[in-house]
């Protein structure tokens, strides 16, 4: 079980982690500024195993891989949105952060709700109801299962 942090549509990568923090040498130094402009308390309140739930086009904007990386570093278990921007989606899978498309979840949940995710079944359970998610293409699920692109490449060797 993890807690939901809910966001709206078109959350851009500047809102996830602003440009001025990208020059910090490590993700750990950046992560405390995650969602600073939308929810300054996010980094303090989020716990490992929690979820980010959003509406359409999550992660639009720049190619910065720091955006999924700070979420993963804070222990976010998965981002579940109605749709994702392309570069964010690829980056998330490559670093091993599950990004899951679920069309019906957003309207029916609130920040603070407790949720359970079953990746294998492609189902989330929250407030006594189940919601079906879109499964990843096998190629991408493979990268994710191995813990991201680095692990996957090392395995190929």
């Amino acid at each position, binding site marked *: 079980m993890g807690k939901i942090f809910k966001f709206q549509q*078109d959350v851009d990568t*500047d809102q996830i982690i602003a440009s001025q923090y990208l*020059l910090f040498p490590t993700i750990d130094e950046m992560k405390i500024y995650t969602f600073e402009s939308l929810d300054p308390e996010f980094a303090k309140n989020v716990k490992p195993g929690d979820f980010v739930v959003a509406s*359409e086009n999550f992660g639009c*904007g720049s*190619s910065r891989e720091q955006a999924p990386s700070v979420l993963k570093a804070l222990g976010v278990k998965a981002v579940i949105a109605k749709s994702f921007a*392309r570069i964010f989606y690829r980056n998330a899978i490559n670093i091993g952060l599950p990004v899951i498309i679920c069309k019906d979840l957003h309207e029916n949940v609130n920040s603070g709700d407790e949720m359970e995710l079953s990746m294998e079944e492609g189902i989330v359970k929250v407030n006594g109801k189940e919601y079906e998610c879109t499964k990843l293409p096998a190629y991408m699920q493979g990268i994710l299962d191995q813990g991201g692109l680095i692990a996957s490449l090392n395995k190929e060797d």
Partner: protein
Amino acid sequence: MGSTIIEKIVRNNTGKEVKPGDIVTVNVDRVMIHDIFIPFVASKFEEMGFTKLWDPDKVVLIYDHLVPASQVDDTRHFKVGNEFVEKYGMKNIHRADGICHQLMTEAGYVKPGNIVFGTDSHTTTYGCVGAFSSGIGYTEMASILGTGTMWIRVPETIRVNITGKLPKNVMAKDIILKIIGDLGADGATYKALEFAGDTVENMSVASRMSMSNMAIEAGAKCALFTPDEKTAQYCEMELTDRERDLVGDKDAVYCQVLNYKAEDFVPVMACPSNVDNVKPVAALEGKKIDQVFIGSCTNGRLEDLMAAAEVLKDKQIAPFVKLIVTPASRKIYLEAMKNGTIATLAASGAIITHPSCGLCCGRTGGILTDGEVVVATNNRNFLGRMGTSKVEIFLASPKSAAACAVAGKIVVPK
């Protein structure tokens, strides 16, 4: 059944017919890394256990976001970059020549039909010469540096037909902003845009560049123009039949077709704080402004500076306005000096800065504070992009931006 441009590029690269939705591995023709992400690319590359680049000549490193350094920490990125270049025998490095997306085509690194990836979302720009180019993260870049390959999902294509003659005060920027407004910020996500029609055929490569540059603002994976004689001249090459064939076939399958008449376009702006929040300039007239920025990989080319100079000739900008002009490359800077454009801009009161990303990435060159309003020719107006999150950013064409600088408020260019 016919093919779209992107399907042909992927087919030519992989040697097999493809359809949208196929996941294929492509051979990468060129990659671009910029100064912000080089430290991360370098460390991931070594973490992956690679000891050499797949082809050092195909890798280009460009310092642009941090040039010249505005904070002490910025110099670490140059140090890491220089060490990487030295260690892995790279030749293609630009330390102060201009913005990455301008240099990739201007310096001849990208040719029609190429497949190119860059660590920047505006890598879609190279579609202006008929190349499939897209932005990726640093982990994926590190993987390409070692392997020379990348997996992609073949995208569906949205066809955009534009026919007729543009009104005099309308630029390519107004067209692409209007299209983004119509599609929405995610209207082209995972898809290719393909531009056609006599309006785009009559456009310069520079104008096409403004359009392909901004395709990502509708979520697009790439944005393609058919290579023609202008492309050939710009790329300093002769087109072969293979490159001439990079045209959407009549019986190709499109997921969506948009048709526009050039005569219907009017000057527009993207209003705070989403690029798809597009309104006619006429509806915004009278809003007082503090600053104007003309530059970036979207609109820092010679024709953009000349369009601004035409508006500003023998005029003074409003006394309370700061006008910042940033040429997209050293080559453009020199050309604009030679033909008198820089002198006209400076005489009107403009601050001319060194070619770089400058204000567009909000680190240097005119950052703003709470309550200030800027009209800018770059590609993003997200909250906090050019200073504090209480700055209002309006995106416009160079002509509109120049007219606003003179008026001190938002006005339609005449």
